[in-house]
């Protein structure tokens, strides 16, 4: 893990705009995210959260403006990012073991043949950190959703990046797994910048130092500022109901007259 000083920005975005088929998705985005921050990206469905994520990962190119991640262009810095996609998008029958999935975090280090001992050790310690050592030989398809989620985090850790990005990690997992997930993330945040996408506004304030609201425009707030008024501004004025308690519907709160 490279030591990045707390004052260097992990992500710097200036005047960015992105349109898809002529429809503007993101406009005039300027953003600076500090290293070792813990952020939550929230916003309604279709508001541009996933697009922002893909721009940061370098999977999409901005139409205008610039992005710098860890001081480099996104295509260059992506190897230093630990990315955790949604586990539910995987083929449930794919024959791959947990250990093989975690080893994929080291994919950039081999050209052909087998992984080096250092790669296997990195994968083993990532599994151990996630408490999954016993599952190493099991099929990825056989284990529970919460466990799969942790395997994907272990894979991101095996890559030994400085920035951990998780896409909707709380979708489709039960409350106990979710609580466990946030304990793990809090620990990882001691050495990594942690960024998480969710459409579940309710829990956001509880765990994160900052929150990024995305709805075509992008605004960064310290979580202490997150108020009903702010959310109303972000989602538009016609909200009938927003619930702030943590334990309502697992689909989140955004669908009640907002999106």
């Amino acid at each position: 893990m490279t030591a990045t000083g707390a004052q260097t920005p992990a992500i710097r975005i200036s005047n960015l705009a992105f349109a898809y088929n002529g429809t503007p998705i993101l406009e005039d985005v300027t953003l600076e995210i500090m290293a070792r921050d813990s952020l939550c990206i929230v916003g309604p469905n279709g508001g541009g959260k996933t697009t922002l994520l893909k721009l940061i990962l370098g999977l999409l190119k901005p139409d205008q403006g610039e992005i710098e991640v860890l001081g480099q262009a996104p295509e260059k810095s992506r190897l230093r990012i630990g990315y955790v996609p949604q586990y539910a998008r995987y083929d449930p029958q794919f024959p791959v073991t947990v250990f093989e999935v975690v080893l994929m975090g080291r994919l950039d280090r081999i050209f052909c043949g087998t992984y080096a001992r250092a790669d296997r050790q990195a994968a083993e310690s990532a599994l151990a950190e996630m408490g999954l050592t016993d599952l190493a030989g099991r099929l990825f398809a056989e284990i529970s959703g919460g466990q799969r989620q942790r395997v994907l985090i272990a894979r991101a850790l095996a890559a030994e990046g400085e920035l951990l990005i998780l896409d909707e990690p709380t979708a489709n997992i039960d409350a106990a797994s979710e609580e466990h997930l946030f304990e793990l993330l809090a620990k990882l945040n001691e050495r990594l910048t942690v960024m998480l996408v969710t459409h579940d506004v309710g829990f956001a304030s509880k765990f994160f130092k900052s929150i990024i609201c995305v709805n075509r425009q992008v605004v960064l707030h310290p979580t202490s500022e997150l108020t009903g008024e702010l959310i109303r501004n972000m989602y538009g004025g016609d909200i009938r109901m927003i619930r702030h308690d943590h334990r309502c519907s697992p689909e989140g709160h955004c669908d009640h007259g907002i999106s």
Partner: protein
Amino acid sequence: MEFLEALANPAIPFLRYALAVGILASLAFGIIGTYVVARRITYIAGAIAHCVLGGIGAGLYCQHKLGGITWFGPLSGAIVAALLAAIIIGLVSLHASQREDTAIGALWAIGMAIGLLFIAKTPGYIEPMSYLFGNILLISEFDLWMVLALDGLVVVIATLFYHKFLAVCFDEEYARLRGVRTDLYYLLLLCLTALTVVLLVRVVGIVMVIALLTLPAAVASNFAKGLWQMMVLATLFCIAFIGSGLALSYSFDLPSGPTIIVIAGLVYLLATGLRQLRTRKN
């Protein structure tokens, strides 16, 4: 027993060739078939296989009509057509934003149509049936060497880049984020699939080669823990299907291709049925 005696009989070399081709090609079939089944691209492999007929037709036409070109025969035609089809279909599947299946279906039919047109215009009577459904009488010693070379190539590449292919099949986006040129590996995998398809066209024919590519891997998936095991098991199943199919077809005077496929199909249905029963019990 009769089959074993026939194998040893120097007067009928084609049976030995067929078995040798089958066993050698099983390696490539087990490995590539596993990727195809795991990545769920059976229909893409099917389209490639049918495009092979275009190349076979062109090869026959060049050989018979344009007399001088002897080096370009049905087998080299098949290899060229299969690789070409793999790259075109691969690019379509990578870049088509919608109606990918329609485009691939069209290529599937166009490839076959071109082949049949060439065969129709080739002087002398050529039976397209033998290419569509396989005819072990057509296997020569030269074919055997070609199969050996292709097989070696496929097995070596597929094994060397096992981890890359695994990652590209399992999670293409993540592989790209780890710096892997996923488009290139996807196209390479399709090209290997194409070469694998060419390997067994003589034995089971174009129409049924897809069944032999996917059924052993599908049966293996019922027992395997992980991709690597699935490859080994699929190879063994493939050898068993081809061996027993050739033996039965010889003993009962049946066409080899359909016999092999019916055996593979029955075992697949049996394995899948047993698995269903077992999961229902639990």
